[in-house]
């Protein structure tokens, strides 16, 4: 109330305590934080756009990469990410409802809606962990050439991608993974892929119905499929068998694609995770009656702002990583 009085008395303007924007210190600072965080996220997304424009002809097509839904086999592009989007918007709604209940000082309702928000956030983080696990594990496998290009394999009749284990047989080999306990200099290497490049070349030669799909996008907006001879020729330049994804190479296409996937969804997932932690703290404060004693629930409104911001960022990540 003091501030309201101060606003009507120009003499006290210089004494501080004015709120010309009618927002408390904490809320203003939350907006400052959100604005700066928005710029960080936009830097991430814009650098994704930069790299994509730079390699526009060979960039992976998102709905050929994210085709998995838990407990279902088959090709379901987009559905799971759409479900995640819906979960996050839904938890945003319960958050606004909590803020609204706070305005009416209904403690138990605030607590219930906060709890639902936390559950929604947890489902989202869990889904993202599953997305990561699927992405890292990979499904089909591919071969990387000397020039760093990824070659995938398709069935000649259907045009669908097929996995390495569908046509490649691993030859007997004495080669084992080099571990740092075996060497003098304590160096080690990554886990060996299931097949060698020579195995894949032999498999391709033995199976007439297998063709190579390159990264190049043709005029119809699809990846180019080579004919039989060109396939064998292209695979002759193979250097690595790639299964799944890591920060160095991935079976989906250009290396930067996986890097941006890990950094952008990872940074966002970290925001959701910290949002859930903050929500849990506020939830317990609500239960303990901290805000009941203060006679206002502005704290719920402030974490609400953060939570909606995380939702807002996901809307953009969804569009620019999965749809466009």
């Amino acid at each position, binding site marked *: 109330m003091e501030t309201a009085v101060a606003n009507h008395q120009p003499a006290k303007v210089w004494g501080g305590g004015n709120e010309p924007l009618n927002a408390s210190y904490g809320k203003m600072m939350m907006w400052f934080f959100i604005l700066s965080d928005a710029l960080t996220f936009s830097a991430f997304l814009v650098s994704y756009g930069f790299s994509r424009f730079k390699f526009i002809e060979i960039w992976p097509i998102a709905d050929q990469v994210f085709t998995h839904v838990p407990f279902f086999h088959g090709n379901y592009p987009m559905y799971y990410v759409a479900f995640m989007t819906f979960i996050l918007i839904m938890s945003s709604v319960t958050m606004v409802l909590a803020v609204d209940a706070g305005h009416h000082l209904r403690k138990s309702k605030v607590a219930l809606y906060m709890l639902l928000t936390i559950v929604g956030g947890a489902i989202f983080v869990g889904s993202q962990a599953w997305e990561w696990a699927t992405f890292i594990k990979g499904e089909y496998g591919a071969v990387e050439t000397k020039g760093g290009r990824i070659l995938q394999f398709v069935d000649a009749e259907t045009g669908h991608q097929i996995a390495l284990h569908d046509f490649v047989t691993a030859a007997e080999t004495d080669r084992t993974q080099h571990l740092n306990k075996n060497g003098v200099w304590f160096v080690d290497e990554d886990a060996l892929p299931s097949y060698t490049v020579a195995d894949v070349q032999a498999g391709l030669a033995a199976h007439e119905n297998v063709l190579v799909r390159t990264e190049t996008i043709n005029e119809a907006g699809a990846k180019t499929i080579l004919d039989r001879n060109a396939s064998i020729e292209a695979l002759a330049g193979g250097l690595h068998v790639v299964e799944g994804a890591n920060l160095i190479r991935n079976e989906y296409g250009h290396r930067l694609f996986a890097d941006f996937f890990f950094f952008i969804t990872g940074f966002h997932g970290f925001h959701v995770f910290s949002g859930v932690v903050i929500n849990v703290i506020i939830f317990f404060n609500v239960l303990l009656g901290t805000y009941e004693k203060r006679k206002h629930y502005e704290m719920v409104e402030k974490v609400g702002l953060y939570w909606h*911001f995380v939702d807002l960022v996901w809307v953009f990540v969804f*569009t620019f990583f999965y749809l466009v």
Partner: protein
Amino acid sequence: MAHEHKLSIFRGAVTFKNNVQKIWGVLIFLSLITAVEVALGITKPEFLVKTPLLGMRLLNWIFIGLTLVKAYYIAWDFMHLRDEKTGLRRSVVWTAVFLIAYLTTLLLIEGNYVYETYANGFIKWNF
């Protein structure tokens, strides 16, 4: 603390009875937009893919437009920007819009330039 909410959306075309109803109304609207986005993303109608507009497919412009609409309603109704003072709202929104638009324009032009340099220059990428 201000408790008043502005209950009209779509420039006053729809007015809700109370704030809770408005929240559900906005949720339905946002879910609808997401459903349209996913449907377009899965079916990819041919004429939208084939029509180029300002260097991108028309479909991508539709996605970006729908995203901005969603962002507007999340910021205005969930983050209560509609109920804030005009000064606060503008200093948040226009700062972000200006800086992000600036950064996007510069980097996308630059990315396209690098692409053309690679495509027309004497650099071999697959060897």
